[in-house]
């Protein structure tokens, strides 16, 4: 015998393992299309970890939205199908499933400090191949690109050296090889 609940809705399913997936969504570049996509995520209770949007082909009026999301395998499948159902959506590709995706992110990192901290920050930036794109006598702004974990690592190292703020683009992804999505 099961326990009786005091709701007329079924109980929540037992927790399953969450996975992180990167989805590339090719959409018509028209007003409101981003609102449709993020409204779908908030309305259905899906997560957005990272979101990147930009026009890709000006003449074709197409934009590419790259979304990093987490969920159970069933939820990830739902997200893909729900996105596909939106009228202005052309394609949805689960980049994680293809196993052929290159993912990159760009961050600008502002660090303030003098003396040994300043030298150390520059040394680390060099090791991470971050470029100095702005400098004052007491600060640097570094530009760094790479996988998210590399950027995380760099930010972590800058923390004790006078990290002021970070601006990140979110993840952009593309498939390896000659074929397009």
């Amino acid at each position: 015998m099961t326990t009786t609940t005091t709701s007329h809705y079924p109980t929540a399913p037992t927790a399953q393992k969450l996975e992180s997936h990167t989805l590339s969504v090719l959409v018509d570049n028209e007003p409101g299309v981003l609102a449709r996509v993020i409204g779908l995520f908030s309305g259905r209770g899906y997560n957005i970890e990272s979101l990147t949007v930009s026009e890709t082909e000006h003449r074709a009026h197409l934009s590419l939205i790259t979304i990093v999301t987490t969920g159970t395998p069933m939820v990830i499948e739902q997200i893909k199908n729900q996105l596909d159902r939106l009228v202005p959506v052309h394609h949805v590709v689960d980049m994680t499933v293809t196993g052929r995706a290159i993912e990159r992110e760009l961050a600008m990192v502002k660090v303030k400090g003098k003396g040994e901290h300043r030298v150390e920050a520059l040394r680390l930036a060099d090791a991470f191949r971050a470029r100095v794109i702005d400098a004052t006598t007491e600060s640097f702004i570094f530009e760094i690109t790479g996988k998210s974990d590399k950027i995380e690592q760099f930010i972590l190292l800058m923390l004790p050296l006078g990290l002021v703020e970070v601006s990140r683009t979110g993840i952009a992804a593309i498939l390896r090889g000659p074929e397009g999505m």
Partner: protein
Amino acid sequence: MSKEMTGAEMVIEALADQGVRHIFGYPGGAVLPIYDAIFQQDKVRHILVRHEQGAVHAAEGYARSTGKVGCVLVTSGPGATNAVTGLTDALMDSIPIVCITGQVPTHLIGNDAFQECDTVGITRPCTKHNYLVKSIADLPRVLHEAFHIASSGRPGPVVVDIPKDIQFAKGTYSKPKDFQHKGYRPKLKGDMEKIKAAIELMARAKRPLFYTGGGVINSGPHASALLRELVQLTGYPITSTLMGLGAFPSANPQWLGMLGMHGTLEANMAMHDCDVMVCIGARFDDRITGRLDAFSPGSKKIHVDIDASSINKNVKVDIPIIGDCAHVLEDMVRLWRTSSIQPDKKSLQSWWTQIDKWRARKSLAYRPSNEVIKPQYAIQRLYELTKDKDVYITTEVGQHQMWAAQFFGFQEPNRWMTSGGLGTMGYGLPSSVGVQLAHPKSLVIDIAGEASVLMTMQEISTAVQYRLPIKIFILNNQYMGMVRQWQELLHGGRYSESYTHSLPDFVKLAEAYHAHGIRCDKPGDLDHAIREMIDVDKPVIFDCLVDQNENCFPMIPSGRAHNEMLLGDAAEKLEDAITEEGKMLV
């Protein structure tokens, strides 16, 4: 051929070119140019409702009973927000609607202008798609596209928001073309390999079951015909969701009745015990599945749906087939006819024996009475006295809706209009207005509850104005019956706010609206009163005073599985062998 005209004229021209004969609406400042255009033509007839929610429900009834797109015209701001309930209802039940909303002039958008609201923002999650038309050059394409999107694939509501300056602007109209939308391509044909695998699985089944839904109705009468053919060819039992009633005739012995929370025992037990489930155009909604981890544990599942996002949403299926029901059913019928595998007659025989045992429990039975009208009896009499007529039924939401689904027999598709997904009280009356308009010679009955019907009662005025002789058959128990039933079962019988004091006198109310009122409170008078209702050639409000304490059974209580149904006290006791009878709560 293209013509120069104003945006407002384009709206009418596009509606006419799309085959629209009726539009339900309510005027206001931001749609006056369109109303002016309506005044100067006679291709599209406007039906003036009394509230914009009523306009959308009427359009839903119109659409559901004809298979055409239902059309709505409302003004900006409150006109649009009042339409939201209807739009959400249409989205949940996949009803094709095109709703044109007026908007403040483009230069005032975002300015908090009078009667301004962010219509596309508000309706984005409650439409299949929506548009804000900012240029007259886009208007003809958008209007035609709206009809295409509303009616193709999984149907749904589409909003076209047109600012007032665009309605005045002049532009070139173009006829609907067989255009290709840039990205929107609903898939109609199912994957042939998957259909073959499904047929093979079905042929090898020992305890098969068809579970069908509103998708079969939406796919058109041809889909229902093919479903009947397939069910008859296989000899398998069939059940259906609330939205699917009528796709398969209830008079057929292979019909097990509706399944789900208030479905029959035989339908739900068959769902639980089947070894192959063939789901066609249904979506494993929570009212259907009950407890998910105990849902039909031993079955292989085939799922046919035009919407890929319906597949594996709640229940993992073994053979998903994405396609239109009619297309897939056509392939299934053909493959079944040529299949070399013969179903195992012996196991099928014992499966039917088992089903007959469940049927013998008479799960819909209730205690008859000579003193008070039992609501179930009222529906039974209504069915008996109208079944030879050309009848369409709409409902509100609650106990009366479930009793109508259980006791009114549907033999044809598109005859049953009910709010399934959203569960909108107040749906039935305006919906019946739309149905009657589309079928002026037919008998259209709204089976109602007194609480629901008061939510949209004003639309009786619309029915009177357009001489639409709808019949509002109210099962009046003075309670929000379903709310009271849940309070009885789950909240210790504390009937918090579920009793309606100060109900109106429905007969006088009918008379005040220039309709006809009938009251009946004795079982012996019921047949006569129903005949009177049928014979009166004007809108009727029938106040049927029923047993106040009757509850809706059978029922799957909260958090339970299909084989843990709660039966009414009149059902047959458990002497017959039933699987897992220990779990049965009687």
